[in-house]
C-alpha cells in the first residue's frame, strides 16, 4: 500500500506493482489509454486473422490440396473476414480517433470518458465472443464450431436448419455487441467535436483528421445500425421462430442481402475515410506545405458520406434486379469516384512543388495513393453491371476489395503508426526497420493482389475449397501464396519494430516531424490532462503560427 501514497507527484518514474498497472489500464477512462487499448487489441486480432489468411492461402497453394478440411476452410474465410473488418480495422481506426481527436481540438478528454471506456469494453467483449465460438460453438447440439457462413451470412444459410448449433449465434451476437460499442464511440466523437473544441477552433479551422472522423462517425450511426437491426431479425428467426428470412413462409432472402449491404457498403467508407484522414495530416507535413484545397476536402468527404449511402446494391447485380435498379446503383457507384478523385488530386496538389521528405510515414502514404487509385479503378470496372455479372463472386472481387483494404487502408494505418508512434510513446520507430517493413509489404502486397486479379478473370470463384489444375491456375495461386507470406514477414518486422523501439528507439521530443497541429504541442506521451492550459487557436495550423510569429497563417485565412 505504501509505495503508492507518495507516487502521485512523480508517477512517471515510480515503479508500480503490475497488479496496480493492470488495474489502472482496466479501469481507465483516459482517451489516450483507451486509444492504445483499442490499437493493442486490434493488433492481437490482426495476428489471428492474418494466420487465418495464411491457412487459406496454404490450402489454395496448389490444386487438390488438402491442408485443411472443407469445413475448416469455410470457418477460416468467415473468421478472417469478420475479424479483419470488425475487430482489426475498426478498432485501430477508433483507437487513433480516440487518441488524436481530443488532442487535435485542444480538449482534455472526450465528451463522455466513461461511455468511451464502456464502448471499448463492449468491442472487446464482441471479439472475445467471436473467438469463444471455437470452443463453445457446438453448444448442446454438438454441431458446428466457429461460424462458417461467410462474413455476410446470406439467408437462408444463416437459418437454424442450415446452421445448427450456436456458431452463427456467436457471429450474430459478437457483431451486435461490437456494433453497440461502435455506435457509442461514434456518438462520443460527434459530441466531442461539436462541444469540446478549444477557443478559436471554429469548424473551419479543425484539422482535416477531425473533420473526417466526424463524417465517419456520422456514417457509423447510419451504417452500423442497419446491421444491428438485421442481426436482431436473424436472432428472432433463429430463437423465436420468426420468418423474416424464411422463404418457405413468404420471407425474402433478398431482403437480408439488402439489409446487409446497406450496412456493408457504407462500412467500406467508414473504414476508408479515417485512412483519408491520416493522409490529409501526413502528406502536408512531409511535403512541407499546407493541405491543398481544405474546404474542398471537407466538402468531398461529406459528399462521399452521402453518396456512399446509396450504392449498396452494386453488391447484388447478380441476383437479378430490374434494369432501373441496376442503372441507378451503377451510376451512384461511379459517382462516388468523383469526390474520391477530387481528394486524390488534392493530395497530389499538396505534394506538387513541396520539399518532399521520404520518411517511412510518407513512403506508406505514397504507396496508399497509387494503390488506392488502382483499387478505385477496378471498383469502377465492376460498377458496370454487365462486367460485374461476369466478375462477381470471382477472385477478381477478392483482389479488388483487398486492394482497397490492404493497399489503401492498411498502408494508411501503417503511415499513421510511423507518424504518431513518437507521440504515443515518446520514442521514434526505427527508420531502417520501417523501410524494410514498407518494401517487404509493398512487394508482398503486389505479388498477392495484383496477381489475384488474373485467376478471377479466368473464372476462379471465391470461397472454393480447392480447384482443378487448369492452365496457369496453379502457378498464379502459388505466387499469390508466396506474396501472402512475404506480407506476413513484413507484419512481423512491424511488430518487432513496435516492441523494440519502445525501449530502444531514439527519444522523440514533442514535435519530431516539425508538424503543425495541436497534438505536437503536448509532451510525448502527453500528460493525462493533455494541456496544462487550454490552447487558443487562430488558424488551421496553430503550431505554424507559434513557430513563425512573423508570418502566421491567421493573416491569410
Amino acid at each position, binding site marked *: 500500500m505504501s509505495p503508492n501514497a507518495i507516487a502521485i507527484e512523480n508517477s512517471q518514474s515510480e515503479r508500480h506493482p503490475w497488479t496496480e498497472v493492470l488495474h489502472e489500464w482496466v479501469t481507465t477512462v483516459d482517451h489516450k489509454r483507451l486509444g492504445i487499448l483499442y490499437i493493442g487489441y486490434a493488433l492481437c486480432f490482426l495476428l489471428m486473422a492474418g494466420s487465418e489468411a495464411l491457412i487459406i492461402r496454404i490450402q489454395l497453394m496448389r490444386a487438390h490440396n488438402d491442408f485443411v478440411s472443407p469445413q475448416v476452410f469455410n470457418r477460416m474465410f468467415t473468421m478472417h473476414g469478420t475479424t479483419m473488418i470488425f475487430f482489426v480495422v475498426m478498432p485501430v481506426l477508433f483507437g487513433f480517433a480516440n487518441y488524436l481527436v481530443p488532442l487535435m481540438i485542444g480538449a482534455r478528454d472526450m*465528451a*463522455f470518458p466513461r461511455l468511451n471506456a464502456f464502448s471499448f469494453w463492449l468491442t472487446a467483449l464482441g471479439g472475445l465472443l467471436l473467438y469463444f465460438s471455437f470452443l463453445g460453438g457446438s453448444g448442446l447440439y454438438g454441431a458446428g464450431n466457429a461460424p462458417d457462413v461467410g462474413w455476410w451470412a446470406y439467408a437462408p444459410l444463416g437459418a437454424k436448419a442450415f446452421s445448427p448449433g450456436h456458431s452463427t449465434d456467436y457471429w450474430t451476437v459478437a457483431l451486435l455487441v461490437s456494433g453497440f460499442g461502435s*455506435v457509442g464511440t*461514434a*456518438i*462520443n466523437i*460527434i*459530441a*466531442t467535436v*461539436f*462541444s*469540446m*473544441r478549444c*477557443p*478559436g477552433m471554429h469548424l473551419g479551422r479543425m484539422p482535416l483528421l477531425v473533420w473526417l472522423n466526424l463524417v465517419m*462517425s*456520422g456514417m457509423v*450511426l*447510419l451504417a*452500423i*445500425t*442497419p446491421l*444491428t*437491426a*438485421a442481426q*436482431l*431479425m436473424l436472432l*428472432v*428467426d433463429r430463437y*423465436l*421462430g*420468426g*420468418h*423474416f428470412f424464411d422463404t418457405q*413462409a*413468404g*420471407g*425474402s432472402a433478398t*431482403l437480408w442481402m439488402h*439489409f446487409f449491404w*446497406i450496412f456493408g457498403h457504407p462500412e467500406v467508407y467508414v473504414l476508408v475515410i479515417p485512412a483519408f484522414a491520416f493522409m490529409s495530416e501526413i502528406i502536408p507535413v512531409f511535403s512541407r506545405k499546407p493541405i491543398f484545397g481544405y474546404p474542398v476536402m471537407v466538402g468531398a468527404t461529406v459528399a462521399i458520406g452521402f453518396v456512399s449511402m446509396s450504392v449498396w446494391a452494386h453488391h447484388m447485380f447478380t441476383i437479378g434486379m430490374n434494369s432501373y435498379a441496376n442503372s441507378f446503383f451503377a451510376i451512384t457507384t461511379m459517382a462516388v469516384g468523383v469526390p474520391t478523385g477530387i481528394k486524390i488530386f488534392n493530395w497530389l496538389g499538396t505534394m506538387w512543388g513541396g520539399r518532399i521528405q521520404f520518411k517511412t510515414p510518407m513512403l506508406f502514404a505514397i504507396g496508399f495513393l497509387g494503390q488506392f487509385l488502382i483499387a478505385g479503378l477496378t471498383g469502377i470496372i465492376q460498377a458496370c453491371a454487365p462486367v460485374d455479372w461476369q466478375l462477381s463472386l470471382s477472385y477478381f472481387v477478392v483482389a479488388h476489395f483487398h486492394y482497397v483494404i490492404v493497399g489503401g487502408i492498411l498502408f494508411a494505418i501503417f503511415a499513421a503508426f510511423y507518424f504518431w508512434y513518437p507521440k504515443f510513446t515518446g520514442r521514434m520507430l526505427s527508420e531502417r526497420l520501417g523501410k524494410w517493413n514498407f518494401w517487404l509489404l509493398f512487394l508482398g502486397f503486389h505479388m498477392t493482389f495484383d496477381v489475384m486479379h488474373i485467376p478471377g478473370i479466368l473464372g476462379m470463384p471465391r470461397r472454393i475449397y480447392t480447384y482443378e489444375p487448369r492452365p496457369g491456375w496453379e502457378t498464379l495461386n502459388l505466387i499469390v501464396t508466396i506474396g501472402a507470406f512475404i506480407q506476413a514477414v513484413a507484419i512481423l518486422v512491424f511488430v518487432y519494430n513496435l516492441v523494440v523501439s519502445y525501449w530502444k528507439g531514439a527519444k522523440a*521530443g*514533442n*514535435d519530431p516531424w516539425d508538424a503543425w497541429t495541436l497534438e505536437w*504541442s*503536448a509532451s510525448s506521451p502527453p500528460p493525462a490532462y493533455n*494541456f*496544462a*492550459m487550454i*490552447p*487558443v*487557436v*487562430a488558424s488551421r495550423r*496553430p*503550431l505554424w*503560427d*507559434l513557430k513563425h*510569429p512573423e508570418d*502566421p497563417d*491567421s493573416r491569410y485565412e
Partner: protein
Amino acid sequence: MSSLTIPITQAPQRWVLPDRGKVAMAGLIFAESAIFTIFVVAYLFYIGKSVTGPAPRDVLETPLLYTICLLSSSMTVHFASKSLERGRTGAFLGLWSLTFILGGLFLFGTAQEWHRLIYERGLTISTNLFGTTYYSLVGLHAFHVTAGLLMLLIVLIFSLSGRVSQRESGRIDVLAMYWHFVDAVWVVVFTVVYIVGR
C-alpha cells in the same frame, strides 16, 4: 517548444459550444432512427406476403386511447422541462409524474393488445410473417418506451427526494428529447401498422 499555449491571439470574446448531452442524444436518435427504418421497411415489404392467416385486417384493433395517452405525454414532458427551467419544481414534479403515468398507460395498452392477440386470436411471433414483423416492430418500440419509463422513474425518484432543481434542467431536456423521439416513432409505427398495413 515548452510553451503549451498559442500566444498569438486573444481568446475570442464569445465561445459558446452546444451542450454535449444534447449533441449526443441527437446522435443516438439518429442511430435509433436507422434501426427503426430497417424494421419499418421490413414491415412494409412483408405486408400481404404471409402465406397463412391471420391477416392484420382480421385481428388488429386501432389503439386510439393509448395513442392519445402517449402523444399527450410528449406535451406534459415538454411543459415539465419548461417549468423546471423556470425553477418551478412543484409543477415539474406534477407534470413529470403525469408523463410517467401516461407512458405507463401506453405500455399497459400494448400489453393488453398483445395478450388479446396471443390468447384470443392465436397470433404469435412465429405464426406467420405478419406476426413476426408486427411483434418485432411494435416490440422494439415498446422496448424503447420501457427504457424511457425507467429513466423517467429514476428522475421521478430523485425529484421526490428533492434532488432535482433548476440546475439539472439541461439534463432533463436531454431526457425529454428521448421521450419526444419515442413518441415520434410511435406516429410512424401507428401509421404503418394500423393504417397502411390494414
